[in-house]
């Protein structure tokens, strides 16, 4: 599934090729389960973000492909865990049956750990020690208790409960925003960008990540399974952005977040236009 604008096809292709290299579809059952989710058609927004940020900061995009793949591996790992019966118990993901339904719960868990392990290994093997170390630390933060794990924990606790707007933001910051920011930082680090440029890109990614999640919430209410590739109305037991602002309000806030993300790119001038296209896609996406 390639839903990104045409200009990003090359970025998607390179990320997909790297993933295919790292996660061969053949092999044991766990490897198959890993490939089942990691190689499933997807937008690969995070991977594209890594590559675009690297290019913007005048880095070598080829050098960033491994990091882009690592980010997608972590994302795939989180999707497998997220769909487990003990978590969201989701039946569909990326247009297919959920990993645990296809391979069994135990294998799915092992596949998730395998993907996560592969991500760290990829970083360690692809980059020189100082950079690999910084990226591993960054990824660890994005996955840890202030990131994916923390967000998922709060999300589980919030199921069937009414939560505050601030709590909802914390959940999404951990589950979505953390990995978006890590992706942007990966691209900037690989390109050797100065700290101020990294701050600008972090601001862009933070706003974009939340906008992406808000649109996800909207699509859960207003989208279709065929279009999104996952079960809709799955978040009925949860408080979402739509609960606070309605569908139109959520779309409006997402658009404003994307505009804010664009403004963070002002010092980059026209060179940041690809990132602006990405945010425009996020604001308008229907799938």
């Amino acid at each position, binding site marked *: 599934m390639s839903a990104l604008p045409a200009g990003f096809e090359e970025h998607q292709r390179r990320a997909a090729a790297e993933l295919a290299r790292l996660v061969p579809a053949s092999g044991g059952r766990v490897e198959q389960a890993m490939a089942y989710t990691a190689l499933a058609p997807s937008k690969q927004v995070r991977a594209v973000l890594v590559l675009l940020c690297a290019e913007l900061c005048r880095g070598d995009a080829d050098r960033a492909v491994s990091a882009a793949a690592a980010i997608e591996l972590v994302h795939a790992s989180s999707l497998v865990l997220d769909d487990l019966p003990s978590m969201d118990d989701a039946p569909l993901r990326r247009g297919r049956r959920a990993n645990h339904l296809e391979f069994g719960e135990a294998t799915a868990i092992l596949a998730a750990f395998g993907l996560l392990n592969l991500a760290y290994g990829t970083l360690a093997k692809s980059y020189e020690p100082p950079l690999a170390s910084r990226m591993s630390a960054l990824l660890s933060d994005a996955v840890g208790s202030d990131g994916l794990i923390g967000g998922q924990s709060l999300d589980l606790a919030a199921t069937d409960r009414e939560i505050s707007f601030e709590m909802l933001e914390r959940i999404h910051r951990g589950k979505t925003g953390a990995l978006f920011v890590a992706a942007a930082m990966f691209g900037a680090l690989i390109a050797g960008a100065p700290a101020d440029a990294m701050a600008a890109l972090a601001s862009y990614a933070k706003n974009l990540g939340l906008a992406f999640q808000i649109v996800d919430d909207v699509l859960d209410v207003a989208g279709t399974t065929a279009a999104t590739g996952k079960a809709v109305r799955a978040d009925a037991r949860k408080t979402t952005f739509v609960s606070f602002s309605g569908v139109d309000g959520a779309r409006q806030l997402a658009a404003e977040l994307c505009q804010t993300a664009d*403004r963070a790119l002002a010092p980059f*001038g026209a060179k940041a236009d690809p990132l602006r296209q990405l945010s425009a896609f996020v604001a308008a996406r229907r799938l």
Partner: protein
Amino acid sequence: MNEERIDELRQRLRSLGYLDAGVARFVLAPARETRGPLALAARASIRMGLLGGALLGPSAALGLGARLPGLVSGVRDALVLALYLSILFFAAVAAAAFAISTAAAAFVRVRDARFPARARTVSAAAGWCIALGCLAYLTFWWRNANAGFGWSAPLWTTFALVVAVSISWLLGYGLRMATLAVLAAAAAGSGAQLPAIPSTSWRVVVGAAAMAFCGAAALLILTAPTATASARAPLAVVSSGKRLLVIAIDGVDPSTPLSVLRGRRAALAARDTGDPARGWTTIATGEPPEVHGVHGLETRRIAGLRGILAADGGRFERLLGAGTDLVRLTRPSIASREERRVKTVWEIAADAGLRTAVVNWWATWPAPAGGGIVVTDRAVLRLEQGGSLDAEIAPPELYPTLQQGWSSIRARAAEAAARHFADVSDGTLVKVLRRSAELDATVIGLLQALPGPARDLDLVYLPGLDIAQHALLTGSGTAALVPSAVTARVDGLRAYYRFLDATLLPLVSARDPEVLVMVLAEPGRIDTPTDGSLSIAGDASSNGGVSRASPLDVAPTILYALGLPLSRELPGHPLRDVLGSAVANAPERYVPTYGRPFAPAAARKGTPLDQEMIDRLRSLGYVK
């Protein structure tokens, strides 16, 4: 889902670090669509100008209003003035922002390897430049605004400075971001590494913006002059048992003394100018013009403002005034009470509970509501023209009484003028003398027509002699007169002195023994500064020598004679040697201040007589 709900969520997102709400978002909004550095600089500078105008306009209005008290007569004036100044600051800040950001773009070479570092340095310098300039301006503004309001309390000063720092920081940050964006636009496509944006906490931006806005607005509202700002000093009167009649005569030549000036006398040192509004306000307040605020007869009224802008009369100021008059931004006006910053003797006496009346004194319009009888310098015009009052007379209930007797006052004045100058044959001369005499007699008639019980202090200003002298000896065409014509005119003025003696002597000699009569004489509008005089013709005086004094001593002398304590703010001293022993034996008592005159104007229902007043003064030779 209504917009309020969305807006609330927007605010909450901002508080969580999304949706930047700072100045950068506002200033850099054009960056998204604009590509060229010049176009971006222009559009960002316009937004910088809007920011500067909105923040600096109200604060400048406050400072200007405090410095020129006649300018802002209420909240409406303050708002209009703030609007004017906002436009001015919009233009100034926008121009400065454009100049600085484009100069920075020209200064930093895009293809230089050190471009990012230089861009950061230059943009930071641009930000500091405007921030420090703004902070210096606001500091001076505070110093001026603080004058007269007693805001010496550390809390107020701290608050004001926090506001100043916030405004300065906002503008500095905005220009820094604009300059960075302009530099980035200049570098686009050049292959140069782009300058990075500084990371600043959104909390600082939002907090500073809110503080600056609320602070400027609060300061403006809090310091708008209101009736409640009129703090009456508690003044205890130790009466000498004497009431006081002060007769002020303008245009007196000291070498041709009036009979009414006989008595114990003090020569008043020549003042710096022949401007009557300035000089007689100095006498009435006991403060120099720099303090009392009435600098000249001619002032300017700014379009949309009820208050006036005092003028010092410098060449540049006159030129500027003519220019702004031409574009209808200002129009000429006459000195009024609104620009006066300190109290007059009659206001101080009224504050102390004494009964007072003042007739035809300069810069008394608009008359205040309460505080004795005030028949302003526009009262004669109003009584002539009729119609509703525009604060020409206070209390307003007095107007019908004076209207009722107006025709007889005028008739008696005309008859007296005709009688005294019946033997003057020169047509021009007699016309001038009669017109001046009619005016003086009318003013005296108004004083005599005031109803009610005897008052503790009466003051009356007689302009006739000065008008006649100015028209006959210093007006246009007088230089070409033949000697006989000059002699005739001097004789005519001598006749005017006799008219004054005849008119005033009944007031001075047939007096109540409890009334002390003080005659103030000033040389009027003459080119050579000459001494004036203060004479006492009451029972408490005696014939004797002439002592030297200053016009600043007149007010303390009047206040002392009435048994009032003296303010330590007054630079002058009571002329005890001029006053008789019945009055001068009392010890001098002092209070720290008399407070500021923030009394609101009396009823203002009628059409203002601004233009009529100018026309009248022009016909009398006061206004060119």
